[in-house]
Structures are given as structure tokens and as C-alpha cells.
């Protein structure tokens, strides 16, 4: 290929003879064609800096958006960087001329093939170089100091940007070439309702992959955990996010969940309810951002129920729907309002404006059928999905639209893995059920923050808000589904608009209080077995740990000012000890100190001693947490003592490996009649695999409430 270089400036560089003297000094001593004689002698280094620095600075400034722009952006960046590199070499070669020695030979050796390779591009480069030199000369005129100052200012700004941005980029480039390990990604903790965990986990992985740098190094890593009940979150707010049940211990505390950097509540109202609890605490701030998705609440029918419906459409009004379901002996299940945020929001559409405690009690019993995992909608649907195969589970459930989509698409529900290819759920509208609007809240914990975390949390919001939850059945923040395949509500609405239901208008505090009144005031006496066998291993720890966590769950469910609680322990033949603590705070502190030691106490004798302590208390309940021990004790004495306390009920909760059909327990329960009921709460004995351990206790509390006089 012929040498395409027509430039008079380039000729000496490419034709320079290293042996013939110093090319650089020759440049300085020989004025170039077109130089302004009034200007100072040309300084090649200065010229190179003025030309190249802004260009690199510009590349540095656009690097971040380019690298964030996915594959195309990365390719553009790489191409631009290569072009810049070539341009720099060429400009150096042209303006400085080729210096002597080894460097000169390298530059010359590099320059020739580059020039040959770029051919006509070289002309453009030379033209640009000329133009830039002309500009420099123009700037250099003594009559334009203001312009020179302004351009210098711009160059200064760009130089700083280049220095700040260039370092990481050079490091990434070198790391890429040398296979060095990635920096540790930022750990971002996300908290949300159990119904969103699987989708947000998947979305988080996608975001981490898409935002990885050139080497494939992720900048962030997500952990997504289901949120505790709203009331617990509210109570934990001024306890440094600790479990209120552990707050009074100075040496041992337990978090209610990891400290979230991101919380995705299901409505503005529930977000506001929790935010108010954190107000003015100083250690954490809430930063509310725009919603990232929506999902309407619907009534899902299992295939068995749908079959009974036939070709008819069920009523869309609540009384009509309930009447029809009653006619086919099918319950309408809703996640429990005290445990599930979605359950609480759904209740806003289920309960009328006027409070009527006796009607509310009836409604709560109706919406809380026994033997179902009702801690969240995902667990409920996992349970229902398992029943699809048999075709017998006739159930109507209030659940979000995206979970119906997930079930029917055989997606991961979080509480259970991907489903089998079986018949799916059908769905029906119910007037008044609100649409869930998934807000995005940044939580800034004073002692767990840094600026990079803040930027990452905001970037993830901006990414998520681009309808990134659509593959998991969510609609965008306006309630629109742009997916081509039919969505549950989209199929019915010709326009594809899903936001016909009003956004959730919930008053959480009022609703929690109202539904709380639907549960009767109760007096609990907690009896915890501390004999040595409570230290035995069970699934999930020891029997005593299980008893402690079971008691902790119960304490978290108590309502301030309405329920009362006392604690006593028992072991050895001495039976029941004195009452150790009164009230939630004292009891929780004592629970932290319990240790297993001593021998078994006969359970009947312990109950006989305990019963009188609840005399004359409203709605008295003894909750006995034990591994079951080995003896029933004096049953007649027990029965007599239990009968003396009006309305007394006893729950024998087994935390170890023993079962309720052990001989001595059967004898005890039989002797007491309906007063004593036994239930296992250890994980191995869970009635359903989708019920979290705490839910076993909740199930018993629900039963107690349903049976209340």
C-alpha cells in the first residue's frame, strides 16, 4: 500500500533519521509552515496535551454511561478507546516528531503500520490536527485572554474528571488483561413481602449480571428476605431493628431481619405506617422513591372449585361471592392480616367502613380457615398447588395477580420451587379489592452506609422501574401490562389496562386495631420446661431453643393493653417454680436466660400448680412448652385444679421429638377433656412443609382465638 500521508508536518517524522541528530530539537528550531510568527515558539508537549487531554477527558466522562449501556455501550466504549489510543500515538508522532533512541524506534515501528492500516483516515487525522493547531493559535492570540481562560477552565474540569474516572477504568482494563480478581461487590439487602421474594431475587441476579463491568465483575449482590409482620417492624423501629422480645437483654439481642437497604412495601399506606414508627429516630432515614410495579388482588380458584363453577361467572360483589362459596362449602381464604402485609391490604377491601365487633369476629373466622398456611399468599398457593393433582382441594384465595401468573407459568414461588405441569388456577374479580402498588424505599442506616451504596440503591430503582418485574407477572407502575401473552386481568380488559381497581387506600393503624378487637382479650401463662432433656437436638436446634422461639412468637402477637402474660418454668420433682416475670418486656428478658438443667417434672402436677394463678383473669390460657417429659402425674388433682378456673384452656405445645400420641400425654389429655389440647410445634412435626416454624405457633393461637368463649 502506498504511503497515503500527504502532510508536510508528518513527513519529517516518518522520514527522520535517528543518526542525524535530535528530531525534537529540530522541531523547535525550525518554524513550521503556517505558524503565526507573532506567537511564541511552538511547544510540542503543550500542543499534544491540549489536543489529547480533552479527548481522553471526554471519553472518561462518557465511559460510565457507555459501560452501563449493556453490550452495545461496551462495544462502543472499546472501539472509542482503541481509536483514541491510535489517535494519541499519531498526534504524538506528528507533533513531537519521533524522538531518538529505543522509544523512537518503537514509535516509528508502531506508526508505520498504523498509518498504512488507517489509510485515508490519516488524512482526516491530519486535518483534525491542523484544525486543532489552528484553534490553538487562535486561542494563543494575546487579544483573546478571556477565551483562553474559558477554554483552560474547561480543560481543567475535564482533566480532573479524567483523573477520577480514568483510574478505575485503567484498573478494569488491566484487570481484564491480567485476570485479577474482581473487587468485592456491594452487598445490598432487600426486604419485601414473601410474595415478592422469588421475583426480586431473580431480578436482582439479572441486574447484577447486566451491570457487571467489562471483566464480568458484578458491582452489587443482593440478598432478598421476607419481611416480618408490619406490627413487628413498627415495634422494632425504635429498638434498633432488634426483636422486641430480645430488647431488654443488655448482652444478647436478635435482629428481626437483616438491616434492609431497600424495602419494597406493597402500598403507600403500609409504607407510611412503618415510616412513622421510624420518624425522628436519627439512626435511620427513609427515602421514598417512585413505585416499581403493581399487581391487582384477585380471587383465585383451585381447579376443583372452578369445575364446580362450570360455565357460570361467580358474583363480583363480596356478599354475593361469599354466599356462593358458602353454597358450595368452600372457604374464602386470605393471608392473615396480622402477619401478612397483603392480608392487611386485602382486608381494607373486605371490611366495611363501620366497625361492628361481633360481625368482624365472624368475618375473621370466615377468612381464616383452619389448617391452611396463612402467613403469606405464596405459602398458601404452594399448599394449594400441591392439591391440584388430587383435584380435591376446593379453595378460593385472595392473592395477587402476579402469583397466579407465577403458579400457572410454573415459576418459583419462593416458599416452594418451580411447579409441575398441572392444571392451573383460575381467577375472578372481586369488587373493592385494591391494587397493590410496590413502592421503593431506601433505608439509610447511619452506621451501615456509604456513598457507593446509596448510588447503587438508586441505580437499581431506576433499572427496576423500567418494568423489569414484568417477566414475573407484575404490571408496571401505572398498572399496564405490555406482555404479549395474556395476563389474568389483561385478558378481560380489552385495553390491557389493569388499574381499574383503585390503589390501596388502607389505614393500617386503624385496621390493625380493628382486627385486633376481633380477637378477644386473653391472659396467657407461659410454662416453659427447663429440664435437661430440653437441651436435646431437634430439627432446627434444641427443644429449649424451639420453646424460646415459640414463646417469642407468642409475645410478638400480643396486643399492648389488651393481652396479659406471665412466665414460669418447671423442672425436677418440685414441679412449677414461682412466676418469674410479668408483661412482655420482663418475660422476653427472662426467656433469654433460660438454660436446660434438672429432671423431668410430671406434667399433670405442673398444670395443677399453675391453674390457680390464672383465677379471675379474663379468657385464661395456659401455654405449656415442653418436650413432653415422661410422666402425666396426679391426673385427678390436675382435673380438679383446672375445673376451678372458669373458662381455662391449656395448650400443650411439644417442642421435642415426642408426639401427642405418647401414652402419658394421651392419658393426660383424655383426663382433662376439652380443656387441654396437645400440638407439636417442632419443625419435623409441621403440618405442612410451607408453614414457617413460627406459623405452627400462630396456628395454635388462631385456634385458641377461634375457640374463645
Amino acid at each position, binding site marked *: 500500500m502506498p504511503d497515503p500521508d500527504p502532510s508536510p508536518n508528518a513527513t519529517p517524522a516518518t522520514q527522520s533519521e535517528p543518526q542525524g541528530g535530535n528530531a525534537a530539537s529540530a522541531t523547535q528550531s525550525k518554524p513550521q509552515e503556517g505558524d503565526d510568527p507573532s506567537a511564541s515558539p511552538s511547544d510540542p508537549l503543550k500542543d499534544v496535551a491540549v489536543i489529547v487531554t480533552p479527548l481522553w477527558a471526554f471519553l472518561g466522562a462518557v465511559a460510565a454511561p457507555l459501560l452501563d449501556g449493556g453490550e452495545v455501550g461496551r462495544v462502543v466504549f472499546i472501539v472509542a478507546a482503541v481509536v483514541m489510543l491510535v489517535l494519541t500515538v499519531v498526534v504524538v508522532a506528528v507533533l513531537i516528531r519521533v524522538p531518538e533512541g529505543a522509544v523512537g524506534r518503537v514509535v516509528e515501528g508502531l506508526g508505520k503500520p498504523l498509518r498504512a492500516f488507517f489509510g485515508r483516515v490519516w488524512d482526516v487525522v491530519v486535518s483534525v490536527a491542523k484544525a486543532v493547531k489552528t484553534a490553538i493559535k487562535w486561542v494563543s492570540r494575546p487579544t483573546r485572554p*478571556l477565551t483562553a481562560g474559558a477554554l483552560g477552565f474547561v480543560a481543567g*474540569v475535564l482533566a480532573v474528571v479524567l483523573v477520577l474516572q480514568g483510574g478505575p477504568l485503567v484498573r478494569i482494563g488491566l484487570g481484564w488483561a491480567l485476570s485479577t480478581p474482581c473487587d468485592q461487590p456491594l452487598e445490598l439487602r432487600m426486604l419485601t413481602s414473601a410474595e415478592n421474594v422469588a421475583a426480586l431475587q431473580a431480578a436482582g441476579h439479572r441486574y447484577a449480571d447486566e451491570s457487571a463491568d467489562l471483566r464480568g465483575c458484578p458491582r452489587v449482590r443482593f440478598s432478598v428476605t421476607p419481611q416480618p409482620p408490619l406490627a413487628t417492624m413498627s415495634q422494632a423501629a425504635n429498638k434498633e431493628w432488634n426483636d422486641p422480645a430480645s430488647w431488654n437483654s443488655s448482652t444478647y439481642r436478635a435482629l428481626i431481619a437483616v438491616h434492609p437497604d431497600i424495602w419494597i412495601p406493597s402500598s403507600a399506606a403500609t409504607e407510611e405506617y412503618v415510616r412513622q414508627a421510624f420518624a425522628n429516630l436519627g439512626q435511620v432515614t427513609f427515602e421514598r422513591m417512585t413505585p416499581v410495579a403493581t399487581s391487582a388482588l384477585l380471587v383465585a380458584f383451585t381447579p376443583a372449585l372452578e369445575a364446580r363453577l362450570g360455565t357460570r361467572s361467580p358474583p363480583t360483589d363480596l356478599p354475593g361471592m361469599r354466599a356462593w362459596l358458602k353454597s358450595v362449602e368452600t372457604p374464602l381464604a386470605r393471608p392473615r392480616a396480622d402477619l401478612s402485609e397483603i392480608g392487611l391490604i386485602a382486608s381494607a377491601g373486605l371490611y366495611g367502613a363501620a366497625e361492628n365487633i361481633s360481625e368482624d369476629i365472624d368475618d375473621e373466622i370466615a377468612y381464616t380457615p383452619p389448617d391452611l398456611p396463612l402467613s403469606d399468599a405464596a405459602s398458601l398457593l404452594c399448599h394449594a398447588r400441591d392439591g391440584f393433582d388430587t383435584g380435591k382441594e376446593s379453595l378460593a384465595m385472595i392473592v395477587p395477580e402476579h402469583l397466579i401468573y407465577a403458579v400457572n407459568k410454573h415459576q418459583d414461588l419462593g416458599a416452594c420451587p418451580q411447579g409441575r405441569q398441572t392444571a392451573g388456577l383460575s381467577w375472578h374479580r372481586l369488587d373493592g379489592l385494591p391494587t397493590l402498588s410496590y413502592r421503593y424505599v431506601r433505608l439509610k442506616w447511619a452506621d*451501615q452506609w456509604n456513598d457507593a451504596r446509596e448510588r447503587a440503591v438508586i441505580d437499581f430503582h431506576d433499572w427496576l422501574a423500567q418494568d423489569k418485574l414484568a417477566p414475573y407477572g407484575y404490571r408496571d407502575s401505572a398498572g399496564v401490562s405490555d406482555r404479549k401473552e395474556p395476563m389474568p386481568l389483561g385478558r378481560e380488559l380489552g385495553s390491557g389496562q389493569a388499574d381499574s381497581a383503585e390503589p390501596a387506600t388502607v389505614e393500617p393503624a386503624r385496621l390493625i386495631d380493628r382486627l385486633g378487637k376481633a380477637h378477644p382479650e386473653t391472659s396467657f401463662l407461659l410454662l416453659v420446661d427447663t429440664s435437661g432433656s430440653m437441651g436435646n437436638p431437634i430439627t432446627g436446634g434444641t427443644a429449649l431453643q424451639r420453646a424460646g422461639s415459640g414463646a417469642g412468637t407468642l409475645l410478638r402477637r400480643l396486643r399492648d393493653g389488651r393481652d396479659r402474660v406471665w412466665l414460669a418454668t418447671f423442672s425436677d420433682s418440685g414441679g412449677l417454680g414461682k412466676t418469674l416475670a410479668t408483661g412482655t418486656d420482663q418475660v422476653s428478658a427472662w426467656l433469654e436466660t433460660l438454660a436446660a438443667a434438672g429432671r423431668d417434672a410430671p406434667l399433670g402436677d405442673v398444670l395443677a400448680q399453675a391453674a390457680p394463678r390464672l383465677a379471675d383473669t379474663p379468657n385464661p390460657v395456659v401455654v405449656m412448652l415442653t418436650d413432653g417429659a415422661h410422666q402425666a402425674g396426679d391426673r385427678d388433682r390436675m382435673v380438679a385444679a383446672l375445673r376451678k378456673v372458669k373458662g381455662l384452656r391449656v395448650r400443650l405445645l411439644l417442642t421435642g421429638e415426642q408426639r401427642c400420641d405418647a401414652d402419658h400425654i394421651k392419658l393426660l389429655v383424655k383426663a382433662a377433656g376439652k380443656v387441654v389440647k396437645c400440638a407439636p410445634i417442632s419443625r419435623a412435626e409441621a403440618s405442612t412443609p410451607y408453614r414457617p416454624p413460627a406459623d405452627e405457633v400462630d396456628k395454635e393461637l388462631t385456634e385458641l382465638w377461634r375457640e374463645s368463649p
Partner: protein
Amino acid sequence: MTGSWRAAAVGAAAGVLLTLVVVGVKERPAPAEQCVDDDVIRVATGDDVSVGGARRELIRRWKGPLVQMIEISRVADLKHDEMLAAAQADPCQAYDLLIIDMASTAEFAAAGLLREIRPEDVPSGLVPQARESGQWDGKQYALPFEVDVGLLYRRADLPKPTSWDQLWPAARQAGATNRRGGYLAQLDEYEGRTVGLLELLRAYGATVVDGDGEIVLDQAPNDQRALAALRWMRQWQSDQTLGDSWKDKEAESLAAFAEGGAGYLRHWPYADLQLINDGRTPFALSKLPGPATLGGSNLAITARSTKYDNVLKFVKYLLQPDNQRQLFACGGYGPVVEAAYEDVGVCPGADARETGTPPTSVDLQRLASAIKDSLPTATRPKLEHYTRFSEVFRACVTKYVFAAEEPTLDDIGIIADELGAAKLGRTEEGEPCG
């Protein structure tokens, strides 16, 4: 210099200065006065798995500045995530001391999240393998708290195997009469699966990561050994020798063995004391017939904690030989101090337990010997991106164990390539080994 150049220089200087001021204001750290400033030593930890809460008892007896133990979660992954996120904070620190998994120590240290323990502050007499688990790049970033090695528990009527080749036929036979499996390990989808699979690969002499942190799985003769191990795992999976291992974590497998549901159990040392206390199933204990995976936890001071000296005093208190002996005798925590393996005594108050037989000094000495004998060959990959490595490792191995087709040497190469990227912390699109 002409006037124009002077003007340009002044403008450039102004531009540089202004930009630096703007950037400085934007990047300034939170004012230090917002950080909690008190004498309380905040310790992040998981829950206490010992019988009777031995660790809590020890901390109750500490006489120095107030120590507040903050139990994050009994789920190991959540504990790791909270500790990592909290340690990444700047400038304030939520925790001064982390009771951190040995496997995660390198990850935290490499990221600059841990304070180097000054050489003069490293107590003498530490178990070498435990001490080395807290080192990274030649420096000590954590001191050991307790050391774990995989041990073999077997029903008392079953033979003691001296090699894996002896163990498998015996386990297969035991599986026929034990409803949960012949050989139970903790192979649920969590870190336990990584531990268990590393042990099964090493049972056939395959090394995944060498001492320098390099992936050597695809190097001869490792590749052939790994292939053989994979094929055997498929066999034990299909003939149910491994039973319910694939859905068990520590607690489930221990409870299954305690109720007599399994023939052999691979578990940590603390299981010994729990099984003795439980007393339902007569059992015997020995070291694994091959190299075990090293586990346990380290005590690491966070890089930005301002309480190094006080925290160190507390750490040294936990490492006193008598305290290590008590943690071992009462809780089954493997001692990290050589002296604690001598003069092993029973747990104070142990005779007050009413069921089973409290561990005797003979029981404890037997356990101590099993741990000590296992330590010389016990290892765990020490990697800057261990979490990513672990995720990819177990995903890949699991895929080939359950694949319809027999794995080949090419598949071993694929696993090695994926692990090579994972150990650098890199992500790949799609599922690992997908």
C-alpha cells in the same frame, strides 16, 4: 508565557480547583459525630448451637467492657450477608467484632474489611490449621474461635470403616434398613453442600483448589479422580445410599440420626455431645476415612472499629485454655488452643441432666482425639471470592450428579473453567455449567 497562555493556565487552575471542591463536597463521608460512640463491644454472630448455651454462659462471665452479642440469623447466608454489608459501611461501623465463618474470612480480609491483628497480639499455642484460617496474604486478619472438622458417626452395631471403599458398601447395606439413608450428609442447597461435595471429591483423591488458590480440578491426575468421584456420587444417589442428604441441613440430619433413621452420619463435633445427651441411639464416633473439610469460625475485628484494644482483650478471654475447654466440654466447640486438647474435663453441672448419659471425660477425650487426628489433612479453599466459588461449585457438581448422561473428562474441564471465573468473582450469563 503570553497573556493568553497565562489566562488559560489560570482558567485551568480554577477549573481543577472548582471540580475538586465539588467532588469533595459530594464525596465527603458522613460526619463522624453520627457514629455511635460508646464503650460497648458489639459482636455480630449467628445463634448458639451448643447444648445449654455454653457460649452465652461464657460471655456472661466476662468482666470487661459491656459486650453485646447481636444474633443476626440462624441462616448462615443471611448472617454472611448482614456482616458483609455492615462491614462495607464507611465511616461508621455497626459491629466491632464478627464471629465469621472460616470460609468467609479471606473474602472479608481481601476486601479490606478486617483489621490486621498485630503479630505481637496473636496468642501462642493456637492450633496451626485454625490460626492459618485467619490469614490472608501473609497477614493475620482473624483469630480462630472454634474449629470444626467433619467426623463420622455410626450406629454402634455398624462396622468402623478405615477407607471410603469400606464405608460405601456398609452404608448401602445400612440404607436398606434405615429410612433416612445409609450415609447422611448435609447436601441441601446451601454451604453445607459445598462442604459435603468437597469431601466426597477428596475421598477419591481429587483436589479442587490447591494451596495457592488455583483451580487444579482439570489437571492430571485430578481430572480422572474427579470423574471417578462424580460417577460414584451418581451411583450413591441412584441407589439411595445418600438417602435424604440432598434435602438435609445440620439440624435435620442430626435429628434423623438421633432417632435412629440413618446408619452413618457425617457431622460436626458438636453433634457428639448432642447425641450423648439425647441418648436414644447408641453410636460410635471416628474420623472420616479420608480428608475432612475444615470448618469453624473466626473472630475478626472490623477494619473501622475504633475499639481494637478492648475487643482484643475480649477475644483473648475467649481463647483462654480454660474457656476453650469449657466451650468444648459444654458446647462441643472444637478447641483452637492446643492446651485445651489436654486435661479435658466434663462440663460443670452436666450431671444435673436427667436423660441419657452426660458426656464423661472419656467421651470428651475421644471427641478431642477425633478432632485432633482429623486436623492435619483438613482443608478448605481460601479464596477472595469464596461465596461465588461455592455457589458455582455446588451448582456444577450437582448438575452432573443428577444429569441423565454420564459425565466425561470434558465436563470436568467445563467445571474447572467455571470455577476459574468464579474464583475471580466474575459472573457468567445463565446458570453455572448451564
